[in-house]
Structure formats: structure tokens, C-alpha cells
């Protein structure tokens, strides 16, 4: 059965970019305003799931040739890696640090190692979410 879903496809094409931007915004807003790795990852993940729901798996896979299990694994590595990384700087496990740096063009910016940790969280969330939904929907 061929479903006529032109409207859905057209809308999603627009909406996905809004959702992705919003997800990235949430991810970076995290430290000082509502947002963060978990919620950012969830929003980004749901944007990807939306794509999968609208278009078929092959089409999306052509555009994003990632194995989402590996994305999740990379996230876990990043999160645990930043935790272990602090040991090399003679600081206790999971110590986070931050500071103000002047970057050309962007000006003075607040940078923190939490971003790496949160990126790990976000990647794990995206990877796991998509993996679960894909494996359930592919199951016959």
C-alpha cells in the first residue's frame, strides 16, 4: 500500500532542522540555562527518529551512514574517558574544570570540560534511542 504523505514529508524537512538547531542550542545552553547533554541528546535523537518515521530506513541511512550502536559506544567512551582523564592531571576521578579564554572572532568565552562529559552523555542518548527504536521497528 502506498501512503500519500507529501505533507508530512514536506513539513518534516523543515521541522527537522528547527528541531536539530533547538537540540544543539539546548546542548550548549546547558551550563547556565535550561538544557544540557541529556535533554539535548533526547531532542537530537527524536529529530533523527522523526526522519526515520517519515522517510524509510534506507533513505535516511544514505544521508547519515552511522552505526548508532557505535555512536552510543563512543558516547560512553567519552563520558568515562573524561572521568578517567582527570586522573592524569593528578586530580580526583571525574574532576571538571572551567575557565575563561579569549578566542579570535568569538571574543572571551567560558569553556569547561563538562562539555566533553555532556557530549558523551548526549551521544549515548542519541545512539541508544535510535538503536532501540530501529531494532524494534525492523523486527519482523
Amino acid at each position, binding site marked *: 500500500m502506498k501512503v500519500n504523505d507529501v505533507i508530512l514529508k514536506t513539513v518534516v524537512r523543515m521541522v527537522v532542522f528547527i528541531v536539530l538547531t533547538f537540540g544543539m542550542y539546548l546542548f550548549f545552553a546547558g551550563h547556565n*540555562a535550561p538544557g544540557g547533554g541529556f535533554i539535548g541528546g533526547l531532542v537530537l*535523537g527524536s529529530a533523527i527518529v522523526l526522519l526515520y518515521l517519515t522517510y524509510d530506513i534506507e533513505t535516511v541511512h544514505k544521508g547519515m551512514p552511522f552505526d548508532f550502536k557505535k555512536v552510543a559506544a563512543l558516547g560512553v567512551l567519552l563520558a568515562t574517558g573524561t572521568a578517567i582523564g582527570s586522573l592524569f592531571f593528578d586530580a580526583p576521578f571525574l574532576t571538571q574544570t572551567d575557565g575563561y579564554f579569549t578566542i579570535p572572532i568569538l571574543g572571551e568565552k567560558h569553556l569547561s570540560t563538562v562539555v566533553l562529559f*555532556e557530549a558523551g552523555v548526549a551521544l549515548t542518548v542519541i545512539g541508544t534511542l535510535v538503536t532501540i527504536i530501529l531494532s524494534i521497528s525492523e523486527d519482523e
Partner: protein
Amino acid sequence: MIVAFSIMLPFIAAALIPFIYRRFKNIHLGWFVLVVPAVLFTLLASYIPRIANGETFVKTYEWIPTFGINITTYLDGLSMIFSLLITGVGSLVILYSIFYLSTKESLHHFYCYLLLFMGAMLGVVLSDNLMVLYVFWELTSVSSFLLIAFWHHRKASRAGARKAMIITVSGGVAMLAGFLMLYVASGTFSIREIIANLEVVQASALFVPAMLLVLLGAFTKSAQFPFHIWLPDAMEAPTPVSAYLHSATMVKAGIYLVARTTPIFGGHEVWFWTVSGVGILTLFWGSFNAVKQFDLKALLAYSTISQLGLIMSLFGLGSAALHLGYASDTVIYTQATFAALFHLINHSTFKGALFMMVGIVDHEVGTRDIRRLGGLMALMPFTFTIAVIGSFSMAGLPPFNGFLSKEMFFAATVNIMQLNIFSLDNFGLIFPVVAWIASIFTFVYCAIIVMRTFFGKIQPDRLEKPPHEAPIGMLISPYILITFVVGIFIFPNVLGHYILQPAMASIYPMFPSSEELTPHIAAWHGYINTELWMTFGVIVFGILLYRTLKKWRPMYQIFPQKYTFNAIYERIIGSGESYSSRITNRYMNGHLSYYFIYIYVFFIAVLAGYALYADVLSWDPSKDSAIEPYELILVFVMVFAAGAILFAKQRITVVLLNGVLGYSVAFFFVLFRAPDLALTQLVVESITTALFLLAFKYLPKIQPEKVSNSIKITKAMISIAVGATVTLIGLAVMNYDKFEPISAYFEDAYNLAGGKNIVNTILGDFRAFDTMLEVVVLFIAGLGVYTLIKLKAKKGDTDVESK
């Protein structure tokens, strides 16, 4: 630093194995692995001169300092012996395994486990902290489990691995309890500090219980009677593993523990009798049972049990010197300990060689059954040489190292009779008599190994392959070992001075000079002493018994099969399995609603029960802010949605109504100015709803429940009680004033964690440990879903487990 590096290197190498394995497919993986123990052996051996001068090397890395748990590496004479054995025998075994295991086996698993074991074992002998020692101790059990079950398609391998695991790990847990008691008594986990505060520990009421529990750990690990039953079954492992773990190193961990804790516990009567009594009993039982075995490896397993008993009993006898204290006439009793250390090294050399010899026979002929073997001497002359030298050394014959240590063992048992402590004047005679009888059996099984395999008539039709000599690579390692067997006999005092003397100093730290504790080892004392007479007796009676073996062999049938330790073990495991499955089947009936009932009833009982018991359910609405009308509307929506779920006829309605509930909660978060929570709730709610809808097509239609009214009412009561519990506790939390709220601490988030959003600083910094582990859990859950769905067996697939 070097010592910590020695522990780390095998683990690092184990982690690198997958990459090396993929990169160099054509080269046998063993060549790369061989580098690790060889380097470590050289490194550690370079410490020998300084250790012989009485130096020790300590380095502490803080781990959990608040609990006194630190990674303290400690290299002294005793650890030196063991670490040299681990790395030395390890190198030889890996060299041997290169020729023993073909590249078709899953070598990357094998060497990964082997390196894990090596690192863990080095960790055991080089750690000063009891907790760290315990961790490594259990890791050796785990790696041994993996190695025994290396050929996991065989049922016997799996059963043997499980048996070894159950016995050694239960002993390990007992040992942990013993360590904790020691900690309670002394206030420290450091062995050196415990020895320094001996008076406090010995005065404690926990002294004897701690001792017995630690001994339980040592006895299970070292396969002492009656826990010896796991070792013969562990012989299902590939022969290099048997040679390495189950004769030279891991089973000696128990011996190490006894030696290491001798300064703490030795000198106590219970210690003396338990260690030497169990040891001498094991010596006898092992050698007695070895004679009846037909499988060469099983025979060697029982002989290992018996030799471990010998070493154990010597440590027990030697501990008497600690009771007597230092005096010029008590030094003679320390010689038992010296003999123990000496025999420990000798046993590793000759038993390692013998295991490799059996491996060669098995590899080249295809069987290890002595009933099918015979007449191999002419066909395998080099292997025959290994067997003769190894067996003669084990039987205690000159000119091999086993003779020297066996003589010293006899001397120690004779000397102990002169003591009049610990009621030794009444029972002391047991030791020389049992030792002598056990040695006769040892002689008999040594004769069986040599005579049955290499003499007699060859039976080519009963062998799997035409016999021929082994490739030279397989012969190198055993030949190096038998060189030691002969070399130690010729120059025993080099070993005595450089290796054994510093170890004596670690076991008798209270005795002023270790020089005095080191006797001059000599094969011939210039006259025929008691021990030499005993050896003569062993040879005469041994030959006699071997000649008449056929006549008295039926004697083994007298023991009823029902009451062997193996049968008891099987019965305990079997009945445990059937009882637990009967109990589990009673409540795990496959009905999801039952499982929810268990969870919720437990939830109510614990939470509501505790809240009532502690009397904290108080609610004071006077402090609350006023309820706005739009909040009431939201509450009404939620109540309506929740009520409607009960009467929904279709699943899709249920999911959507459930979504209404979730979104309403999110609205509440918005109203109460919690944007983080609101956002999370909204996204999570959307995704779960999508997931539900996705999973729908697999679910059947809702069927009306056909249950009696009383069950319906019970279920309703439970659900109402759950709701009431949550609500009441939520309300009570507002008024809880037993301790100060910790929220004030987090308000300083910007200075402490550099973030203005408290929620995120808690997630990413204050409680980042939780977040990190949650991420890991999420990942595992995702992988779980994936494997459950994708990797399930197709219909008609064979069950891999039950081959």
C-alpha cells in the same frame, strides 16, 4: 614504580591483544605474548641482589584513603620467589603453548585470559593491602574459570570450570570476612602494619575466627583436603594452563597467603594444628588417590594436591618456632619453613616439566590413558628423559632437587617430635609416620608415570596417532625446567642464599638474623641419618608396592562411591539447583500482573511501613501557597485521564491517555517554574509515546479479564495503596525536619562548578559519578534490546550449549 609496572603490564598487554591479533594474522600470537613475562622476569630478577641484601621496596598509590584502602606494592623476599615463579614459569609455558596450540584455536581469548591471570597473580603476591590482595585473588579465580572452560563446547570443561569457581570463590569470600575481622582488630588493611601491631591483633577476640576464615580461603585455593576435588576436574583445561595455573602458580596462592600471614597467626596452637594437620592429611590423601588414576593428567593433579599438602604442612610445622620465640635452639624448627620454600620452587620445576611431558604425549599420541600407553621409550627418547628426571625428583631420589627438599621435609617431621608444646609429645609421631607412608605412595605413582608410559609393550592399535618424537619447540621449555631440577641439586646453596634467605626474613621478621635461619643444604651429611634411612625405606617399600600393585589395587573399590567428596559436592549442587528452581517456579509464573503485585506490595511494605514506623507522615497545609484555579483544572484533567485508562477498550487509547497524564505533569513543571524538568518531561513523554505506538503491532488486543471480584478488589486496593504511599510521602517530605536540607550547598554552584544552572551542575559535576554510570546503564540497556531482538536464535537452530 617498577613493581607497579610489573602488575600493570600484563593487563595492558591483555587489552592490546585484539589489535595485535588482527594486525598479525600469520604469526602465532604467543610470540608477542611471550615478551611480557620475559621482560618482567628480567626486570624482577635484577632486584635479586638488593633483595638478598635485605632491602624491601614499598610504594603506595592512594586509592580510597578514607577507608585505608591503598594500592601498596611491596617487594620482599617472599614476593620475590612467587613473582619469579609466575614470570619464569609463565615465559616457559607460553613458549610451550606456541607449539601446543594451533592457530586454529581462538588464541586471542586464550592469551588474553592468560595475561589477565598473570597480572592478577602478580597483584596477589606484590600487594601489601589486604583489600587489593583480595581483588586480585578473586581475579585469579575468574581467569582460571575462563581458562578451564577454554574448550567450552565440552561439557566436562564447563563443569570443571564451575566447580573450581564455586569452591575457590566461596573460600575467597570467607577470606574476605577474615580480612575484615583483621581490619576490625587492627584498624589497618596493611599486612606490614598488622605485623607491627601484633599484640593488639592477638589480644582480639576475633583473632581465631579471622585465622580460620583466612585459612579457608588459602585451603580452597590450594586444593587442600577436603576442598581438593576441584583440581582434578580443572585438568580439562589445555595442558599449558594446567602446568601454569594448576601446578606452578595459582594453586600456590593459598600457600603464599599462609606464608604471608604466618608472622600474624603463626605461633598459635590452632594455626599449627590446622595448617600442618590439613597439610599432612592432604599429602597422604593426594598421593594415595594418585595411584588409582588411569589418566596421566588426573594422576598429576592428585600428585599436585599431595605436594601442596606437603608444603602446607611444612609451613605449619615451621610456625612452631614463632611460638617458642627466638633462641639458638629454636632455630632448628624454622628449617621446616625453609624446606617449604625450597620445595615450593623444586615442585614448580619438576611438576611443570612433568605436565609438559604429559602434554607432549597427549599431543603426539592422542591419549593420556596409561592403559593404552606403553613402550614409548624408544620412540620418544627426549620426552622419556623429561619423565624420568621429573618423576625421580618428585619421588625424592638423588641426584635431583626433589631429593634435597624431601630429605629436609623428613628431617622437619622428625625434629618436631622433640617439642613438648601443643601436646606434640603425644601426637608428634603422626607427622613422620604419615609423611613416610605418603612418600611411599608418591614413589609408586612416580613409578607408574615412567613405567606405564614408556616401558612395556607398545599398543599401536589403541593409540589415536602413530607415536613420534615431539617438535623441538615443545621440548625447549621442559628441558629448561629439568636443567633446573639437576642444577638446583648441584648448587642448592646459591638458591638458598639469594632467594630463600630473604624470604625467610619476611616470614620470621622478629628473628634477628636471616643468615642463621638459612641452613647449609647438602645432599650428603657424611653419615646415614634418620631421613636417609626413611628414604631407603621409601624406595624398598615403594618398589615392593609397585610390583604387587595388581593385588592391592581392588582395595580402592572398598570405598563406597556414594560418599566420595565429589558425590557430596554433586548432591549439594544438584539439590540446590532443583530446590531453587522449584521455589522460583512457584512465584515466577509468567503473568506480568503477578510480578507487578510483588513489586508494589514490597514497595508499600517497605516505604509505607517504614514511614509509619518512623512516624514521619505529618502534613501541615498552613505553610503551603494558595491553590490557583488553573491548577485545579489541570488536576481535574489528570484525574479524568487516569480514570479513563481503566475503562479504555483499545491499547491506543491507553497510550494516548497515558500521554495526557505525562504532558499534564510537564505543565505542572512549567507552572512551578522548573523549565529543565518540564523540557525533559515533554521530550521523554513524546519519545515514549512514539515507542509505545511502535511496539503496538506486536501486542494482541486487550482481552477482558476473567477473574473473580475478590482478586479485582485486591488489585484495586494495592494500586490505591501505592498511590496513597507516594502522595503521603511526597507531602511528608515538605515537613521533614530530622536533618538540614543539603540544597544550600548547591546554591553556590557557580563558584564550585562554574555553572549557573544548578540542575546541570549537579548532573555534570556534583553528582557526575551517577550520571556517568547512568550513561553506561543506558548503553547496556540499548545493547540488551538490540541483542534480544536481532540475535535471537532462528527456528530450528541448534543449541550451541549442549554439545
